[in-house]
Protein backbone atom coordinates (compact mmCIF):
# COMPACT_ATOMS: atom_id res chain seq x y z
CA UNK A 1 0.00 0.00 0.00
CA UNK A 2 3.03 2.26 -0.38
CA UNK A 3 3.56 2.46 3.35
CA UNK A 4 6.76 3.79 4.88
CA UNK A 5 8.47 0.80 6.41
CA UNK A 6 10.81 0.55 9.36
CA UNK A 7 12.72 -2.25 11.04
CA UNK A 8 11.08 -2.90 14.41
CA UNK A 9 12.80 -5.61 16.44
CA UNK A 10 13.60 -7.46 13.23
CA UNK A 11 10.12 -6.98 11.77
CA UNK A 12 9.54 -4.99 8.64
CA UNK A 13 6.70 -2.79 9.86
CA UNK A 14 4.72 0.09 8.39
CA UNK A 15 5.27 3.39 10.28
CA UNK A 16 2.46 5.10 8.45
CA UNK A 17 0.46 4.76 5.29
CA UNK A 18 0.63 7.43 2.58
CA UNK A 19 -1.14 10.80 2.66
CA UNK A 20 -2.41 9.99 -0.85
CA UNK A 21 -4.85 7.44 0.61
CA UNK A 22 -5.90 9.70 3.49
CA UNK A 23 -3.34 8.35 5.96
CA UNK A 24 -0.30 9.76 7.77
CA UNK A 25 0.16 9.48 11.53
CA UNK A 26 -2.25 12.31 12.43
CA UNK A 27 -5.08 11.10 10.19
CA UNK A 28 -4.58 7.50 11.31
CA UNK A 29 -4.60 8.56 14.95
CA UNK A 30 -7.76 10.66 14.53
CA UNK A 31 -9.51 7.84 12.66
CA UNK A 32 -9.03 5.53 15.65
CA UNK A 33 -10.22 8.16 18.15
CA UNK A 34 -13.31 9.15 16.17
CA UNK A 35 -13.99 6.26 13.76
CA UNK A 36 -11.98 3.14 13.07
CA UNK A 37 -8.52 2.02 11.98
CA UNK A 38 -6.82 -1.34 11.46
CA UNK A 39 -3.32 -2.41 12.41
CA UNK A 40 -1.29 -5.44 11.41
CA UNK A 41 0.12 -6.45 14.78
CA UNK A 42 1.38 -9.89 13.82
CA UNK A 43 4.71 -9.05 15.41
CA UNK A 44 3.08 -9.64 18.80
CA UNK A 45 3.91 -13.05 20.25
CA UNK A 46 1.60 -15.68 21.70
CA UNK A 47 2.33 -18.30 24.35
CA UNK A 48 -0.22 -20.96 25.23
CA UNK A 49 -0.26 -22.70 28.61
CA UNK A 50 -2.56 -25.69 28.88
CA UNK A 51 -2.94 -28.52 31.37
CA UNK A 52 -4.22 -29.34 34.84
CA UNK A 53 -1.83 -26.86 36.49
CA UNK A 54 -2.06 -24.11 33.89
CA UNK A 55 -3.61 -21.69 36.38
CA UNK A 56 -0.96 -22.39 39.00
CA UNK A 57 1.73 -21.81 36.36
CA UNK A 58 0.21 -18.52 35.20
CA UNK A 59 -0.18 -17.38 38.81
CA UNK A 60 3.48 -18.18 39.48
CA UNK A 61 4.86 -16.19 36.53
CA UNK A 62 2.53 -13.18 36.37
CA UNK A 63 1.72 -10.39 38.81
CA UNK A 64 -2.02 -10.01 38.29
CA UNK A 65 -4.47 -12.51 39.76
CA UNK A 66 -5.46 -14.94 37.00
CA UNK A 67 -7.70 -16.87 39.38
CA UNK A 68 -10.19 -14.02 39.01
CA UNK A 69 -10.56 -14.70 35.28
CA UNK A 70 -13.70 -16.42 34.04
CA UNK A 71 -13.37 -18.50 30.88
CA UNK A 72 -13.40 -15.95 28.06
CA UNK A 73 -11.97 -13.13 30.14
CA UNK A 74 -8.64 -11.34 29.79
CA UNK A 75 -6.46 -9.16 32.02
CA UNK A 76 -3.46 -6.89 31.73
CA UNK A 77 -0.51 -8.30 33.66
CA UNK A 78 3.27 -8.59 33.61
CA UNK A 79 6.02 -11.18 33.87
CA UNK A 80 8.60 -10.13 36.46
CA UNK A 81 12.16 -11.00 37.33
CA UNK A 82 12.90 -12.00 40.93
CA UNK A 83 14.02 -8.36 41.44
CA UNK A 84 10.48 -7.14 40.73
CA UNK A 85 11.48 -5.61 37.39
CA UNK A 86 9.90 -6.42 34.03
CA UNK A 87 10.50 -9.37 31.73
CA UNK A 88 7.56 -7.99 29.72
CA UNK A 89 3.98 -6.83 30.07
CA UNK A 90 1.33 -9.23 28.78
CA UNK A 91 -2.34 -9.76 28.24
CA UNK A 92 -3.49 -13.01 29.83
CA UNK A 93 -6.53 -14.58 28.17
CA UNK A 94 -8.34 -17.47 29.78
CA UNK A 95 -9.48 -19.48 26.76
CA UNK A 96 -10.81 -22.58 28.54
CA UNK A 97 -10.95 -24.13 32.00
CA UNK A 98 -7.25 -25.10 31.89
CA UNK A 99 -5.99 -23.05 28.96
CA UNK A 100 -4.41 -19.58 28.96
CA UNK A 101 -2.95 -17.46 26.17
CA UNK A 102 -0.30 -14.85 26.94
CA UNK A 103 0.08 -12.13 24.33
CA UNK A 104 3.58 -10.68 24.51
CA UNK A 105 5.72 -8.05 22.79
CA UNK A 106 7.65 -8.45 19.53
CA UNK A 107 11.06 -7.44 20.83
CA UNK A 108 10.91 -9.84 23.75
CA UNK A 109 9.34 -12.92 22.11
CA UNK A 110 12.23 -15.35 22.44
CA UNK A 111 13.25 -14.06 25.84
CA UNK A 112 9.66 -14.28 27.09
CA UNK A 113 9.06 -17.78 25.78
CA UNK A 114 12.28 -19.12 27.27
CA UNK A 115 11.53 -17.40 30.53
CA UNK A 116 7.98 -18.76 30.71
CA UNK A 117 9.14 -22.28 29.80
CA UNK A 118 11.99 -22.25 32.33
CA UNK A 119 9.82 -20.91 35.14
CA UNK A 120 6.90 -23.29 34.70
CA UNK A 121 8.78 -26.61 34.58
CA UNK A 122 7.52 -27.63 38.01
CA UNK A 123 3.89 -27.47 36.85
CA UNK A 124 1.84 -30.07 35.00
CA UNK A 125 1.22 -27.78 32.06
CA UNK A 126 2.32 -27.64 28.40
CA UNK A 127 3.91 -24.40 27.19
CA UNK A 128 3.73 -23.71 23.50
CA UNK A 129 5.08 -20.81 21.45
CA UNK A 130 2.32 -20.00 18.94
CA UNK A 131 3.87 -16.72 17.83
CA UNK A 132 4.41 -17.83 14.25
CA UNK A 133 1.00 -19.47 13.92
CA UNK A 134 -1.11 -16.33 14.03
CA UNK A 135 -1.57 -13.14 12.11
CA UNK A 136 -2.97 -10.66 14.58
CA UNK A 137 -5.09 -7.81 13.24
CA UNK A 138 -6.34 -5.02 15.50
CA UNK A 139 -9.56 -3.21 14.54
CA UNK A 140 -9.60 -0.17 16.79
CA UNK A 141 -11.92 2.76 17.39
CA UNK A 142 -15.54 3.44 18.35
CA UNK A 143 -16.75 2.10 14.99
CA UNK A 144 -14.58 -1.02 15.13
CA UNK A 145 -17.49 -3.04 16.41
CA UNK A 146 -19.61 -2.06 13.39
CA UNK A 147 -16.91 -3.07 10.93
CA UNK A 148 -16.12 -6.42 12.51
CA UNK A 149 -19.79 -7.28 13.06
CA UNK A 150 -20.24 -7.23 9.26
CA UNK A 151 -17.63 -9.97 8.95
CA UNK A 152 -18.53 -12.35 11.75
CA UNK A 153 -21.45 -14.40 13.07
CA UNK A 154 -20.31 -13.85 16.67
CA UNK A 155 -22.53 -11.44 18.59
CA UNK A 156 -19.99 -8.72 19.40
CA UNK A 157 -22.42 -6.72 21.52
CA UNK A 158 -22.20 -9.57 24.04
CA UNK A 159 -18.41 -9.28 24.28
CA UNK A 160 -17.35 -6.80 26.93
CA UNK A 161 -14.04 -4.94 27.01
CA UNK A 162 -11.23 -7.38 27.91
CA UNK A 163 -13.30 -10.45 27.08
CA UNK A 164 -12.76 -12.93 24.25
CA UNK A 165 -15.04 -15.06 22.12
CA UNK A 166 -14.78 -17.34 19.11
CA UNK A 167 -16.64 -17.08 15.85
CA UNK A 168 -16.41 -17.32 12.09
CA UNK A 169 -14.57 -14.28 10.72
CA UNK A 170 -14.29 -13.79 6.95
CA UNK A 171 -15.19 -17.48 6.55
CA UNK A 172 -12.53 -18.64 9.02
CA UNK A 173 -14.23 -20.81 11.62
CA UNK A 174 -13.45 -20.73 15.31
CA UNK A 175 -11.44 -17.52 15.08
CA UNK A 176 -10.33 -15.99 18.36
CA UNK A 177 -11.84 -12.51 18.76
CA UNK A 178 -10.66 -10.42 21.72
CA UNK A 179 -12.06 -7.03 22.71
CA UNK A 180 -8.61 -5.66 23.51
CA UNK A 181 -6.13 -3.22 22.04
CA UNK A 182 -3.26 -0.84 22.57
CA UNK A 183 -4.92 2.42 21.59
CA UNK A 184 -6.88 3.44 24.73
CA UNK A 185 -9.97 3.05 22.56
CA UNK A 186 -12.62 0.39 22.16
CA UNK A 187 -11.67 -2.25 19.63
CA UNK A 188 -10.96 -5.86 18.76
CA UNK A 189 -7.97 -8.02 18.00
CA UNK A 190 -8.47 -11.12 15.87
CA UNK A 191 -6.11 -14.06 15.55
CA UNK A 192 -6.11 -15.73 12.12
CA UNK A 193 -3.84 -18.31 10.48
CA UNK A 194 -0.47 -16.78 9.61
CA UNK A 195 -0.25 -17.87 5.97
CA UNK A 196 0.18 -14.88 3.69
CA UNK A 197 -2.76 -15.52 1.37
CA UNK A 198 -5.26 -15.80 4.23
CA UNK A 199 -3.81 -12.79 6.02
CA UNK A 200 -3.96 -10.62 2.90
CA UNK A 201 -7.50 -11.75 2.09
CA UNK A 202 -8.80 -10.94 5.58
CA UNK A 203 -6.95 -7.60 5.66
CA UNK A 204 -8.56 -6.61 2.36
CA UNK A 205 -12.01 -7.78 3.43
CA UNK A 206 -11.76 -5.62 6.55
CA UNK A 207 -10.65 -2.65 4.43
CA UNK A 208 -13.69 -3.09 2.17
CA UNK A 209 -16.13 -3.66 5.03
CA UNK A 210 -14.77 -0.56 6.77
CA UNK A 211 -15.06 1.77 3.80
CA UNK A 212 -18.51 3.03 4.83
CA UNK A 213 -17.14 3.83 8.30
CA UNK A 214 -14.09 5.69 7.02
CA UNK A 215 -11.69 2.95 8.12
CA UNK A 216 -8.01 3.56 7.39
CA UNK A 217 -4.96 1.29 7.73
CA UNK A 218 -2.68 2.46 10.54
CA UNK A 219 1.01 1.97 11.18
CA UNK A 220 3.34 1.85 14.17
CA UNK A 221 3.52 5.64 14.34
CA UNK A 222 -0.16 6.04 15.20
CA UNK A 223 -0.04 2.98 17.43
CA UNK A 224 2.62 4.76 19.47
CA UNK A 225 0.86 8.12 19.74
CA UNK A 226 -2.45 6.42 20.60
CA UNK A 227 -0.94 4.31 23.37
CA UNK A 228 0.99 7.32 24.69
CA UNK A 229 -2.18 9.43 25.04
CA UNK A 230 -3.64 6.54 27.04
CA UNK A 231 -0.43 6.08 29.10
CA UNK A 232 -0.11 2.45 28.04
CA UNK A 233 3.47 1.35 28.75
CA UNK A 234 5.91 0.30 26.03
CA UNK A 235 8.62 -2.22 26.88
CA UNK A 236 12.08 -0.62 26.80
CA UNK A 237 10.56 2.78 27.55
CA UNK A 238 8.20 2.95 30.55
CA UNK A 239 9.00 -0.59 31.69
CA UNK A 240 12.20 -2.62 31.47
CA UNK A 241 14.42 -5.03 33.36
CA UNK A 242 15.68 -2.14 35.52
CA UNK A 243 12.33 -0.57 36.40
CA UNK A 244 10.05 -2.08 39.04
CA UNK A 245 6.28 -2.24 39.28
CA UNK A 246 5.91 0.55 41.84
CA UNK A 247 8.08 2.95 39.85
CA UNK A 248 6.04 2.26 36.72
CA UNK A 249 2.82 2.95 38.64
CA UNK A 250 1.25 -0.38 37.67
CA UNK A 251 0.21 -1.16 41.25
CA UNK A 252 -3.38 -1.90 40.37
CA UNK A 253 -2.35 -4.80 38.12
CA UNK A 254 -0.09 -6.30 40.79
CA UNK A 255 -1.94 -8.44 43.29
CA UNK A 256 0.33 -8.78 46.32
CA UNK A 257 -2.47 -10.51 48.21
CA UNK A 258 -2.28 -13.59 45.99
CA UNK A 259 -0.07 -16.24 47.45
CA UNK A 260 3.23 -16.17 45.59
CA UNK A 261 4.70 -15.11 42.27
CA UNK A 262 8.13 -14.42 40.85
CA UNK A 263 9.17 -10.93 41.92
CA UNK A 264 6.80 -10.68 44.86
CA UNK A 265 9.42 -10.84 47.64
CA UNK A 266 11.53 -8.10 46.06
CA UNK A 267 8.45 -5.94 45.56
CA UNK A 268 7.58 -6.36 49.23
CA UNK A 269 11.01 -4.97 50.17
CA UNK A 270 10.85 -2.25 47.52
CA UNK A 271 7.49 -1.12 48.85
CA UNK A 272 8.80 -0.69 52.39
CA UNK A 273 11.85 1.19 51.12
CA UNK A 274 9.85 3.55 48.91
CA UNK A 275 10.54 4.49 45.29
CA UNK A 276 13.35 6.74 44.14
CA UNK A 277 11.57 7.64 40.89
CA UNK A 278 8.03 7.58 39.55
CA UNK A 279 6.52 7.70 36.10
CA UNK A 280 4.62 10.93 35.54
CA UNK A 281 2.86 12.64 32.66
CA UNK A 282 4.27 15.91 31.35
CA UNK A 283 2.69 18.51 29.16
CA UNK A 284 4.94 21.01 27.45
CA UNK A 285 4.13 24.55 28.54
CA UNK A 286 6.68 26.27 26.30
CA UNK A 287 7.15 25.63 22.60
CA UNK A 288 8.96 22.35 22.02
CA UNK A 289 8.50 18.60 21.76
CA UNK A 290 9.97 16.28 24.38
CA UNK A 291 11.34 13.08 22.82
CA UNK A 292 12.41 9.71 24.18
CA UNK A 293 15.61 9.99 26.20
CA UNK A 294 15.58 13.77 26.71
CA UNK A 295 16.67 14.95 30.16
CA UNK A 296 14.23 16.38 32.70
CA UNK A 297 15.64 19.29 34.71
CA UNK A 298 14.46 21.11 37.82
CA UNK A 299 14.06 24.90 37.89
CA UNK A 300 17.74 25.30 38.70
CA UNK A 301 18.87 23.32 35.67
CA UNK A 302 19.81 20.20 37.66
CA UNK A 303 19.14 16.88 35.88
CA UNK A 304 16.42 15.03 37.82
CA UNK A 305 15.06 12.46 35.39
CA UNK A 306 14.41 11.49 31.80
CA UNK A 307 11.67 11.21 29.22
CA UNK A 308 10.63 7.63 28.38
CA UNK A 309 8.26 8.55 25.54
CA UNK A 310 7.43 11.96 24.13
CA UNK A 311 5.49 13.15 21.14
CA UNK A 312 2.91 15.55 19.86
CA UNK A 313 -0.51 14.15 20.84
CA UNK A 314 -2.66 14.38 17.71
CA UNK A 315 -6.06 14.12 19.41
CA UNK A 316 -5.24 16.27 22.44
CA UNK A 317 -3.28 18.72 20.28
CA UNK A 318 -0.62 19.13 22.95
CA UNK A 319 2.99 18.05 23.25
CA UNK A 320 3.06 15.35 25.90
CA UNK A 321 5.58 12.99 27.46
CA UNK A 322 6.01 10.30 30.08
CA UNK A 323 9.04 10.72 32.31
CA UNK A 324 10.70 9.30 35.39
CA UNK A 325 11.20 11.91 38.11
CA UNK A 326 12.08 11.68 41.83
CA UNK A 327 9.50 12.00 44.63
CA UNK A 328 8.84 15.69 45.19
CA UNK A 329 8.26 16.30 41.49
CA UNK A 330 5.25 14.05 41.01
CA UNK A 331 2.34 16.30 42.02
CA UNK A 332 0.16 17.62 39.20
CA UNK A 333 1.06 21.22 38.51
CA UNK A 334 4.75 20.83 39.37
CA UNK A 335 6.92 22.83 36.99
CA UNK A 336 9.94 21.14 35.42
CA UNK A 337 12.03 21.66 32.30
CA UNK A 338 12.88 19.32 29.47
CA UNK A 339 16.25 19.78 27.80
CA UNK A 340 15.66 20.09 24.08
CA UNK A 341 18.77 20.62 21.94
CA UNK A 342 20.60 22.25 24.83
CA UNK A 343 17.71 24.52 25.86
CA UNK A 344 15.61 24.17 29.04
CA UNK A 345 12.01 24.17 27.83
CA UNK A 346 9.15 24.55 30.34
CA UNK A 347 6.84 21.64 31.10
CA UNK A 348 4.34 20.75 33.80
CA UNK A 349 3.34 17.52 35.54
CA UNK A 350 -0.25 16.64 34.61
CA UNK A 351 -2.66 13.87 35.67
CA UNK A 352 -2.60 10.69 33.59
CA UNK A 353 -3.82 9.07 31.47
CA UNK A 354 -3.69 12.11 29.19
CA UNK A 355 -6.67 10.66 27.32
CA UNK A 356 -9.54 8.57 28.60
CA UNK A 357 -12.18 7.36 26.20
CA UNK A 358 -15.66 8.70 26.82
CA UNK A 359 -17.96 6.27 28.63
CA UNK A 360 -20.89 5.13 26.54
Amino acid sequence: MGAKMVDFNGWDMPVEYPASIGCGIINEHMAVRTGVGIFDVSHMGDIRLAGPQALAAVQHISMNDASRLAVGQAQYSALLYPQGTFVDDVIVHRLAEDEYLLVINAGTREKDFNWVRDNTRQFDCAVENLSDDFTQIAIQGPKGVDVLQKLTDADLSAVKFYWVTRGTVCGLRNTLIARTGYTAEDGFEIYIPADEATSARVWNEILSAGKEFGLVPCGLGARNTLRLEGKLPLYGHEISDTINVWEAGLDRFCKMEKREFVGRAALEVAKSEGVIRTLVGLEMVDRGIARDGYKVLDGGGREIGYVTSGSPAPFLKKNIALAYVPPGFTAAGTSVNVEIRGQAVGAQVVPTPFYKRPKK
Partner: protein
Amino acid sequence: MAYPTDRKYTKEHEWIKVVGQQATVGITDHAQESLGDIVFVELPKIGAELAAGKSFGTVESVKAVSDLFAPMSGAVTEVNGDLTTSPEKVNKDPHGSWMLKMTMKNPADLQDLLSAADYEKFVAEEGGG
Protein backbone atom coordinates in the same frame (compact mmCIF):
# COMPACT_ATOMS: atom_id res chain seq x y z
CA MET B 1 5.45 15.98 -8.24
CA ALA B 2 7.59 17.86 -10.73
CA TYR B 3 10.37 19.90 -9.17
CA PRO B 4 10.29 23.57 -10.25
CA THR B 5 13.18 24.50 -12.52
CA ASP B 6 13.38 28.08 -11.21
CA ARG B 7 15.54 26.93 -8.29
CA LYS B 8 18.35 24.64 -7.16
CA TYR B 9 18.36 21.68 -4.77
CA THR B 10 20.61 19.98 -2.21
CA LYS B 11 21.19 16.35 -1.35
CA GLU B 12 19.80 17.26 2.10
CA HIS B 13 16.44 17.78 0.33
CA GLU B 14 16.27 21.55 0.43
CA TRP B 15 15.45 23.95 -2.38
CA ILE B 16 17.15 27.31 -2.94
CA LYS B 17 15.82 30.06 -5.14
CA VAL B 18 18.43 32.72 -5.91
CA VAL B 19 17.58 36.22 -7.09
CA GLY B 20 20.64 38.48 -7.27
CA GLN B 21 22.49 38.11 -3.96
CA GLN B 22 19.37 36.95 -2.12
CA ALA B 23 18.51 33.26 -1.62
CA THR B 24 15.20 31.79 -0.42
CA VAL B 25 15.35 28.36 1.23
CA GLY B 26 12.76 25.66 1.87
CA ILE B 27 12.46 21.86 1.94
CA THR B 28 11.42 19.71 -0.99
CA ASP B 29 8.29 17.73 -1.65
CA HIS B 30 10.30 14.56 -1.18
CA ALA B 31 11.49 15.81 2.23
CA GLN B 32 7.97 16.62 3.48
CA GLU B 33 6.68 13.34 2.11
CA SER B 34 9.29 11.27 3.93
CA LEU B 35 8.96 13.24 7.16
CA GLY B 36 5.18 12.90 7.30
CA ASP B 37 2.95 15.31 9.24
CA ILE B 38 5.14 18.30 10.14
CA VAL B 39 4.27 19.75 13.55
CA PHE B 40 7.21 21.95 14.48
CA VAL B 41 9.67 24.19 12.66
CA GLU B 42 12.53 25.93 14.45
CA LEU B 43 14.35 28.62 12.50
CA PRO B 44 17.33 30.86 13.27
CA LYS B 45 17.08 34.52 14.23
CA ILE B 46 17.35 37.28 11.68
CA GLY B 47 20.99 38.25 11.37
CA ALA B 48 22.29 34.78 12.18
CA GLU B 49 25.34 33.80 10.13
CA LEU B 50 24.87 30.42 8.43
CA ALA B 51 27.77 28.25 7.27
CA ALA B 52 27.28 26.03 4.22
CA GLY B 53 26.54 22.45 5.25
CA LYS B 54 25.95 23.30 8.94
CA SER B 55 22.65 22.85 10.74
CA PHE B 56 20.59 26.03 11.00
CA GLY B 57 17.31 24.75 12.37
CA THR B 58 15.01 21.82 12.94
CA VAL B 59 11.87 20.43 11.45
CA GLU B 60 9.87 17.89 13.43
CA SER B 61 7.18 15.52 12.30
CA VAL B 62 5.02 13.56 14.75
CA LYS B 63 7.60 10.78 14.69
CA ALA B 64 10.97 12.35 14.04
CA VAL B 65 13.34 15.28 14.44
CA SER B 66 15.38 16.37 11.41
CA ASP B 67 18.09 18.98 11.09
CA LEU B 68 17.95 21.64 8.42
CA PHE B 69 21.29 22.25 6.71
CA ALA B 70 22.40 25.55 5.25
CA PRO B 71 22.77 25.19 1.48
CA MET B 72 25.24 28.08 1.43
CA SER B 73 26.98 30.55 3.71
CA GLY B 74 25.44 33.92 4.46
CA ALA B 75 23.33 35.99 6.85
CA VAL B 76 19.64 35.40 7.52
CA THR B 77 17.54 38.38 6.43
CA GLU B 78 14.04 37.04 6.96
CA VAL B 79 12.34 33.96 8.47
CA ASN B 80 8.85 32.69 7.69
CA GLY B 81 7.10 33.21 11.05
CA ASP B 82 3.95 31.74 9.57
CA LEU B 83 5.47 28.26 9.92
CA THR B 84 5.73 28.67 13.70
CA THR B 85 1.96 28.63 14.01
CA SER B 86 1.14 26.61 10.87
CA PRO B 87 3.95 24.12 10.27
CA GLU B 88 1.55 21.87 8.31
CA LYS B 89 1.80 24.36 5.43
CA VAL B 90 5.12 22.72 4.58
CA ASN B 91 3.25 19.46 3.86
CA LYS B 92 0.57 21.19 1.83
CA ASP B 93 2.83 23.40 -0.27
CA PRO B 94 6.50 22.52 0.24
CA HIS B 95 7.79 24.51 -2.71
CA GLY B 96 5.74 27.58 -1.75
CA SER B 97 6.43 27.44 1.99
CA TRP B 98 9.82 29.06 2.26
CA MET B 99 11.66 28.87 5.55
CA LEU B 100 14.17 31.68 5.38
CA LYS B 101 15.80 34.25 3.16
CA MET B 102 19.51 34.89 3.30
CA THR B 103 22.26 36.85 1.62
CA MET B 104 24.70 34.84 -0.42
CA LYS B 105 28.22 35.31 0.92
CA ASN B 106 30.06 33.11 -1.54
CA PRO B 107 28.55 32.70 -5.04
CA ALA B 108 30.75 29.66 -5.55
CA ASP B 109 28.46 27.79 -3.12
CA LEU B 110 25.96 27.65 -5.97
CA GLN B 111 28.17 25.26 -7.91
CA ASP B 112 27.52 22.50 -5.38
CA LEU B 113 23.76 22.64 -5.88
CA LEU B 114 21.68 20.33 -8.06
CA SER B 115 19.35 21.21 -10.92
CA ALA B 116 15.72 20.07 -10.73
CA ALA B 117 16.45 17.18 -13.10
CA ASP B 118 19.54 16.07 -11.17
CA TYR B 119 17.68 16.28 -7.88
CA GLU B 120 14.81 14.19 -9.23
CA LYS B 121 17.35 11.61 -10.36
CA PHE B 122 19.05 11.71 -6.97
CA VAL B 123 15.74 11.07 -5.18
CA ALA B 124 14.92 8.18 -7.52
CA GLU B 125 18.35 6.62 -6.96
CA GLU B 126 18.03 7.05 -3.20
CA GLY B 127 15.02 4.76 -3.40
CA GLY B 128 12.61 7.46 -2.36
CA GLY B 129 10.06 9.40 -4.39
